[in-house]
């Protein structure tokens, strides 16, 4: 799709004309991220994070494929092969740190991207499908990151795998056989490590596939924007190239600076020291914690400490942890306000910031030991989390009185829109 005023691809070089007839790949790129894609002129820097997420995915695939050339998925040597990469493979230390911190960077970027979506209600019609595909990508990312963390076969790898695969055991009736079938044993071991490696290699390409659908779906209605007012005329947009390629280029530079600062000067800051101890099924670490990007959900899992009627606490925890993400699928229908942007929704905006703080609290508690007061704090924070999405959001959308919206993006940017005057007074 495109707006009627979109630039058209006109190849001048004979070779490009020839190529355009046989396989219009340059035309495709031109219309997707080139001058042929009109984009709202008022996107702020939060709109950089989609591209940044794409860069992170490519970075992870490239470093990951090379690491896989040197890694051995065997419980006997997996840990040693990781150290071999760190010591004896040319630039292996850089590849591994780039990959491990790349996962963290990917999640930082994607969390900003998701909360951008929350604040500006990017999930609302006509962009529901983009949002739904985005949640699918996030779920796939979580699975991929979890399995990747198991591969070095350190203490946290092993015990993390044990705890997370143990969640399947909470499913009534079929839980335990299902868990053993998935693991290929009673506990994570050679069979599990091998299939985790296989899936960890496969899933990024599945993610890439869904990302392509995500971007395709984006190009149907076009990008949203901070006002939440749809594009009305040509003056509301600028061509993606050079305007947003330039803006994204600058954003990418800032991102890479931060990422490389961590990669080269504090590459283990986000990891756990226990993962430099080889996996030992006979010795349980004092505190089993996942990587930081799982902490909010881990806190929700652990918040259920009492059986609820006939439902065991563990099953409640598992249900809640998955529901905490699955609820995002229903956002387009839970938030019924006709206004998209949080900039014009005073009440919604307040609750958005409460949610942001709430998730940060959950994250902190998820990384802390499973002891008081952290468990009680996460119980309150998790209560708010569910009430926010399922009770408060629908309620706010129906009682809130939004602030007046600008007529158009142009008016929001320039303070006036000549097109608006024309259409309001056709006689003038």
């Amino acid at each position, binding site marked *: 799709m495109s707006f009627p005023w979109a630039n058209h691809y006109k190849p001048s070089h004979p070779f490009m004309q020839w190529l355009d007839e046989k396989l219009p790949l340059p035309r495709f790129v031109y219309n997707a991220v080139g001058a042929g894609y009109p984009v709202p002129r008022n996107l702020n820097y939060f709109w950089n994070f989609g591209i940044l997420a794409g860069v992170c995915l490519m970075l992870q695939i490239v470093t990951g494929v090379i690491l896989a050339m040197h890694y051995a998925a065997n419980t006997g040597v997996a840990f040693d092969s990781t150290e071999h990469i760190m010591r004896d493979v040319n630039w292996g230390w850089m590849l591994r740190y780039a990959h491990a911190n790349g996962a963290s960077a990917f999640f930082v970027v994607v969390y900003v991207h998701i909360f951008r979506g929350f604040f500006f209600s990017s999930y609302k019609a006509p962009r529901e499908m983009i949002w739904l595909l985005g949640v699918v990508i996030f779920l796939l990312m979580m699975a991929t990151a979890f399995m990747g963390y198991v591969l070095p076969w350190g203490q946290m790898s092993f015990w993390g795998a044990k705890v997370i695969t143990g969640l399947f055991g909470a499913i009534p009736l079929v839980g335990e056989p299902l868990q053993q079938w998935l693991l290929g044993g009673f506990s994570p071991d050679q069979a599990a490590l091998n299939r985790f490696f296989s899936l960890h290699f496969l899933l990024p390409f599945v993610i890439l596939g869904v990302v392509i659908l995500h971007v395709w779906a984006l190009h149907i209605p076009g990008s949203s924007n901070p006002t939440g007012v749809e594009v009305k005329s040509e003056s509301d947009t600028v061509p993606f190239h050079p305007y947003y390629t330039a803006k994204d280029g600058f954003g990418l530079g800032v991102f890479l600076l931060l990422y490389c600062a961590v990669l080269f000067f504090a590459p283990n800051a986000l990891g756990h020291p226990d993962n430099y101890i080889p996996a030992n099924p006979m010795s349980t670490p004092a505190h089993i914690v996942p990587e930081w990007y799982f902490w909010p959900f881990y806190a929700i899992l652990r918040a259920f400490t*009492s059986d609820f009627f006939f439902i065991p606490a563990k099953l409640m925890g598992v249900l809640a942890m998955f*529901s905490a993400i699955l609820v995002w699928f229903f956002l387009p229908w*839970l938030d019924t306000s006709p206004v998209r942007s949080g900039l014009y929704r005073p009440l919604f905006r307040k609750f958005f910031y409460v949610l942001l703080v709430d998730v940060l609290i959950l994250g902190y508690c998820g990384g802390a030991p499973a002891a008081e007061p952290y468990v009680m704090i996460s119980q309150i924070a998790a*209560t708010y989390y569910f009430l926010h*999405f399922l009770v408060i959001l629908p309620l706010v959308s129906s009682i809130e009185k939004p602030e007046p919206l600008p007529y158009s993006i142009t008016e929001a940017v320039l303070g006036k829109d000549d097109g608006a005057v024309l259409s309001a007074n056709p006689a003038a």
Partner: protein
Amino acid sequence: MVRLFGPFVGLFFAVALLWSFGNGAYVAITEPAAPTAEHEFHKHPKEVHFASDGAFGRFDKEQLQRGFLVYKEVCSACHSLKHVAFRDLQQLGYSEAEVKAIAKQWGTKQPTFDPKTGDRGERDNLPADHFPMVYYAGQGSPPDLSLITKARHEGPAYVYSLLTGYQDQPAELLKKFPDAKTPEGLHYNPYFANLNLAMPAPLTGDGQVTYSDGTPATVDQMSKDVAAFLIWTAEPKLDKRKQTGWAVLGFLLAATVLAYLSKKQVWSNVGGH
């Protein structure tokens, strides 16, 4: 449908959570967690600085050599160093011939197996060999030290603190927790997670190792040196990593400035930015 059932699902989770919260609060009030000796007497590692600290820090090779000497004379009796090869020692400033000699004279030999005769034997170490496995039959299981400074919180300071932290059990601890008396065969050290470890103080007196560079071999100095050496064994590419890092950041900074200027240029004809 979603708007009809959504609030019920939300309230379901909320009530279950508050039920857990209530139970937890009741237990916390009626049965407050008892204090433990580990909780009250465990100490965080001491403040200590190494030449390799910080973004500009580099290894002090003389210190690494002294630390290697401490490992060789003291630690290597019980602790292996399996991720490090003798050839790696050249990075500490030893010559190829010196490394060859160190490998040849190393006390623990490399095990050999002759598949034709089935005989097991041993041979001298070669520079290409990794440090040989050390088998320890006594109490406790000495961990491999290759990665120890990355496998503990504040690893280098932890190693230094543990080595210099041996002491008699405080009277205060025994008075408050009579059951927490250090068991026979273990040794009290407040820097160890559960306060008692199987390893007796390995560095007991000044001059235990003879340094060739004239540095006084105090217990404090030897502990610091071996901690520095173990930073190197855990991250031999540390210097190269930081060096590369500065080059990368320098390049990225220049590229980002250019990207900013071109962004400004491109947007200069569009209002509002």
